[in-house]
Structure formats: structure tokens, C-alpha cells
């Protein structure tokens, strides 16, 4: 980040760099110690819970999907209920390529899935992002439903309602096979893909491009006024977000070794929205927290008491919308600001006294 543009005295530059605002801006994107925690936990879980690696892979995919939505919704403020369109596009790209034996290598398949989803995102974004509010919401739902119905209609190629079962996915690097019983490969593979995508998204949101997205979300009129190319920024962001959602969909198809129409479900689109909001949107790690809480509750509660799960989820959503609009992470931050600061202050005071 360049702070100065005018020829000034070195002392003045130092003084400006030392300005609190400049310091915050230059430090904003630095890695913090706690950012290592989720990854350490993910690696730890690999050894601690070998029986739950299948669930773990599912969780990692949900995180990736929510992360892609965070880019579009959390940063750029594009309110969509149709993000499963891109998940499905990626899943079907991988699924059809593998099922017909055209391409089964997993990593390049994921790139193809990303491209397929990006094309869908670009084409739909070019037309959809002209609109706002309810119209935009409706158009995203309709695009997703359109894709789902197309996949249903093209029964001969997509398997229609039944989908494409038992996809032959080649081993990763030609060595590590996807075993449906022991999900070790799936877990590590999904974790690696998530890490790469996360690094990309993190770099993107702290870049000037990411800054302009936040600006568009916060004040559209002002961004127009300062001459920011709002529409093209939104379309680019939507396309990137779609590509990452496509990767998530491709991963889903590969780790499960099947695709079906549920990839395009409104339930899935609503679910990922809930995950993101639950964790807290526009803050990268919200996707992690939300996915863990949501999937853990769903996995352990929904199978035993499906109705109670639905009721609890409904109550949770209502409570979050009414009282905790920034999700669990936002709630944590607020609590930290209120109580944590005094605690750490006391801690420091105690250390100084001793």
C-alpha cells in the first residue's frame, strides 16, 4: 500500500506512515496468530477422529462453498438465494466428464469445474447484476431453478432425477485413491483445496479490488460518484465467487462419487446462506464457524430429532436476524470488546505490578 504520492520530506513520510490510520491500513492484512488455529485444528482432527473423516470432508466442502458466498454476499453485498447454481454447475461438470470417461484426473477436473461455473456466473452476472433488491433475489432463484430443470430435462446426458452414480475418479497425483469407506484421501484433498482457495480469497479481499467491493456494499452511490467501475467490479466478483462455488461443487461430486439434482436445490442455496450468516458474513472466518456449528448440529441432532432440528434452526435464524446480525463471530467480537478488553487490561496491570 502506497501512502504518499507527493514529494515530501522523509520526516514527513515517516510521520504519515506513523499516523494511526496508516498503521491500521498497513497492518490490516497481516497474519495474526489465531489464524493458524483452524488449520491446526483441521490437521489435528485428521489424527483424532479417523472415523469421522467423511463428515470432515463434507464440512470442508461446506466451508469452501460458504467462503465463495462470502465473497459475493459478504464483501460485495450481492444478495443471492441462487448460489447453488454454481455449486451444481461445478458438480455436473466434474460428474459428466468422469461418468463418460472423458476426464477423470481430479485436480484438473476441479479447474474445469471452476471454469464451467465461472462461465455460468459471468453470463448470469452480466444480466442479473443490473437489477437489485427483490428482483435480483428472484432472478438468482430463477437462474438456479432453470439450471436444475435443464439438468432434469437433459435426462440422457445428466441422468435426470437419479443423477450420475459411481463416478470413476482417478487417484490424486496418480497415487492416493478415493476410498468410499476410509475418507482419508478425501479429507486431506479437500483440506488442501480449501487452503489454496482460502489464500486466494484472503489476498483478494485485502487487495484494492476487495476494498472497492466493500465500498460498493457500504455505499453504492458514493462509489459511483468517485468513478469506480461498479458494474464490472460486481460482475468480476460474482464470476470469481461462482468459480469457487464450482470448485466446491466439483469437490462434492468427487468425494461422494456421484452427482444428482440436489446440487441445485433451493435448500442447498438457503443452507449455505444460513451457514454464512450464522458464522458472520464479510469476515472470512465466518464460513468456518458457521459451517462447523451448522453441520455438527445437523449431523448429530437432525438424524435423531429432525423436527426439533428444524424448530431449533428456525428459532436460531430468527434470533440472529433480530439480535446478532453479525453472526457468532460478530457476537464474539462484541463480547470481547465489552469484557475481554478489561480482562486483558487487568492482566497487563497485574503483570506490571508484580
Amino acid at each position, binding site marked *: 500500500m502506497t501512502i504518499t504520492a507527493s514529494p515530501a520530506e522523509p520526516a514527513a513520510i515517516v510521520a504519515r506512515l506513523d499516523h494511526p490510520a496508516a498503521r491500521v491500513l498497513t497492518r490490516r492484512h497481516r497474519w495474526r496468530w489465531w489464524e493458524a488455529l483452524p488449520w491446526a485444528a483441521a490437521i489435528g482432527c485428521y489424527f483424532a477422529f479417523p472415523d469421522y473423516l467423511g463428515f470432515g470432508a463434507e464440512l470442508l466442502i461446506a466451508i469452501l462453498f460458504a467462503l465463495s458466498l462470502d465473497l459475493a*454476499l459478504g464483501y460485495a453485498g450481492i*444478495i443471492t*438465494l441462487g448460489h447453488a447454481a454454481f455449486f451444481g454447475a461445478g458438480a455436473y461438470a466434474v460428474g459428466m466428464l468422469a461418468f463418460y470417461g472423458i476426464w477423470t484426473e481430479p485436480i484438473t477436473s476441479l479447474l474445469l469445474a471452476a471454469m464451467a461455473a465461472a462461465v455460468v456466473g459471468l453470463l448470469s452476472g452480466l*444480466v442479473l447484476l*443490473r*437489477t437489485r*433488491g*427483490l*428482483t435480483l*433475489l*428472484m*432472478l438468482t*432463484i*430463477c*437462474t438456479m*431453478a*432453470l439450471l436444475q*430443470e*435443464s439438468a*432434469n*430435462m437433459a*435426462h440422457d446426458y445428466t441422468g*435426470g432425477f437419479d443423477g450420475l452414480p459411481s463416478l470413476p475418479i482417478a487417484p490424486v497425483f496418480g497415487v492416493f485413491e478415493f476410498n468410499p469407506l476410509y475418507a482419508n484421501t478425501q479429507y486431506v484433498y479437500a483440506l488442501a483445496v480449501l487452503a489454496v482457495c482460502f489464500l486466494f480469497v484472503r489476498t483478494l479481499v485485502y487487495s484494492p479490488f476487495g476494498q472497492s467491493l466493500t465500498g460498493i456494499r457500504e455505499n453504492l452511490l458514493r462509489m459511483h460518484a468517485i468513478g469506480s467501475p461498479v458494474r464490472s467490479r460486481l460482475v468480476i466478483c460474482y464470476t470469481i465467487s461462482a468459480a469457487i462455488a464450482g470448485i466446491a461443487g466439483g469437490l462434492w461430486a468427487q468425494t461422494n462419487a456421484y452427482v444428482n439434482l440436489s446440487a441445485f436445490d*433451493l435448500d442447498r442455496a*438457503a443452507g449455505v*446462506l*444460513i451457514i454464512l*450468516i450464522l458464522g458472520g*458474513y464479510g469476515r472470512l472466518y465466518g464460513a468456518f464457524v458457521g459451517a462447523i456449528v451448522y453441520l455438527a448440529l445437523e449431523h448429530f441432532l437432525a438424524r435423531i430429532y429432525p*423436527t*426439533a432440528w*428444524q*424448530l431449533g*434452526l*428456525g*428459532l*436460531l*435464524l*430468527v434470533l*440472529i*436476524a*433480530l439480535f446478532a*446480525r453479525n453472526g457468532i463471530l460478530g457476537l464474539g467480537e462484541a463480547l470481547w470488546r465489552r469484557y475481554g478488553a478489561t480482562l486483558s487490561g487487568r492482566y497487563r496491570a497485574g503483570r506490571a505490578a508484580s
Partner: protein
Amino acid sequence: MDFATNFASILLGGLSAGTVLFIVSVGLSVTMGLMGFVNLAHGAFAMFGGYIIVLAMNRAHIGFTAALALGFIATTAISVLLERLLYRRLYRAGELDQVLFTIGLIFIFMAVIVIVVGPESQQITLPPALRGQLNLGFTQYRTFSIFLIVVGFLTVTGIWLGFERTRIGAQIRATVDNRRMAESLGINVDRLFTITFAFGSGMAAIGGGLGAEFLGLDPQYALKYLVYFLIAVSVGGLGSVVGVYCASLLLGVLDFMLKLYVPKGGTIFIYALTILLLLWRPQGLFGKKET
């Protein structure tokens, strides 16, 4: 069956389905037009009302008309309660919070219905007068469908007259056009909204009861038809009663026709048409351009 009879039966079947869609979604259109509140839970009120009506008839053996009235009153009451306690807090919030809140409400309604009534779908038993076929001269068709079409036409006429000729209708129109100006003129927008919200939910309840015969009534109702309600409202134009009526009838006939001729994936045309239409006129067919 010759072509004319065939055509008439498609038209009548589609119109009756569209009428139900209209009765359910008209309230949604007006409340969205008034407050810009994205109320996805509107279908849940229709479902709630439908359950009250069907259960009142099947278990308490109340007459059809009385059950409809009961459903209307019960749903109105619960919607006023929810509006006063919860919806009210979110008027100034973003769309995202409104979407989330109303999805949450749908889940709660669904779960409560499963707990209280059970997950199975409910059957409505129509009064004998509405069963059977009616001879229309040129063709025969189900009496209930004809009844629905007539009721729908009377309803839209009634609401239209209410909008055009009464004081409260004028206030609603003024507020849909320009909310700030209406507030400045001393119109109590909050109270207006409560009234329309309650009335709209009551109408949805009646729609849920009337549509139970061929849309079915199960705990998934509010989610299953959500997209249809939203299409009717957004294509018709927010806050426009005539617009929702036309859009609903169009949607009903189109859906009926496609289900008959293209049973597999015929709805694709509906989605494609909606997308094209909304791109051409983002404010809907009869909606006013945003200022």
C-alpha cells in the same frame, strides 16, 4: 375430446389454479409494495390458515364457510401478533436480515405443524354443493374450479374497489407511491401496514384453504410454492393488485398447460419467461418505476 373442449378445460383449470395463487399472493404484493419488506414467510401464513380450515372441517365438523372465516380470523390474529412483536423490528434492517428472519419463521411454522398435527398431508372434503361437474353450455367442468374463478374475480374487483374508492385504499396507494411523502402528510404508515399485513395474511389463509384441494396441504407447503408466490408478485409488480391478478392467472394457465403437454421439466419455460420478463421490466408488468 375435440380441440375447443380441450382448450376450455385447460383454460378453466389454469384459471382456477391462478386464482388460488392470486388469493394467496395479493397480500404479499401489497405489503412488499408498502414497506419493501421481503416476507418469504407469507406462504407459511397460507399454510397455517389452510391447516386451520381443513382441521376445523375434518375434526370439528364445521361448515365450509364457517371454517374459512375461522381460518381468516385465526391467521389475522397471529399475523398481527408477529407483526407487532417481531416484523416491526426489521423494517429498517437490510434485505438479508429480512430474508433470514422469514426463512426462520417458515422453519418454525413447519416444525410446529409437524409436532402438533403430524407430517402427513391433509385432505379437504368439499361441501356437496361444490362437488361434481357444472354444465356451462359449451363444456362441462368441475364445479369447484368454476366457483374458484368466480370467487377470484369477485375478490379482485372488491379489493380494487377498496383501493380506488375508500380512504384507506387511497392511503395505501399514496404510501406505495411515495412513503416519505405519505408520512409527511400525516398518514400513519405503521398502522396502515399492520392492517394490510393482517388482511393480506388472512387472504393467504383463505387461499391456503381453497387451494388445499389440488395444491395439497403438508408441512412443506410454504417452501414448495414459495417460488411461485414470489414469481406472481414480482412479475405482477409490487403493490399492484391488478398486476398480481394478471400474473397469477398467466402463471396458472401456463403451468397447467406445461404440466399437461411437457410433463417432464416443462416448468423450465416458466423460469425462463420470468427471467426475460424481469430483465425487460425489473419493476414487473404493472409496477411503478422506482424513483
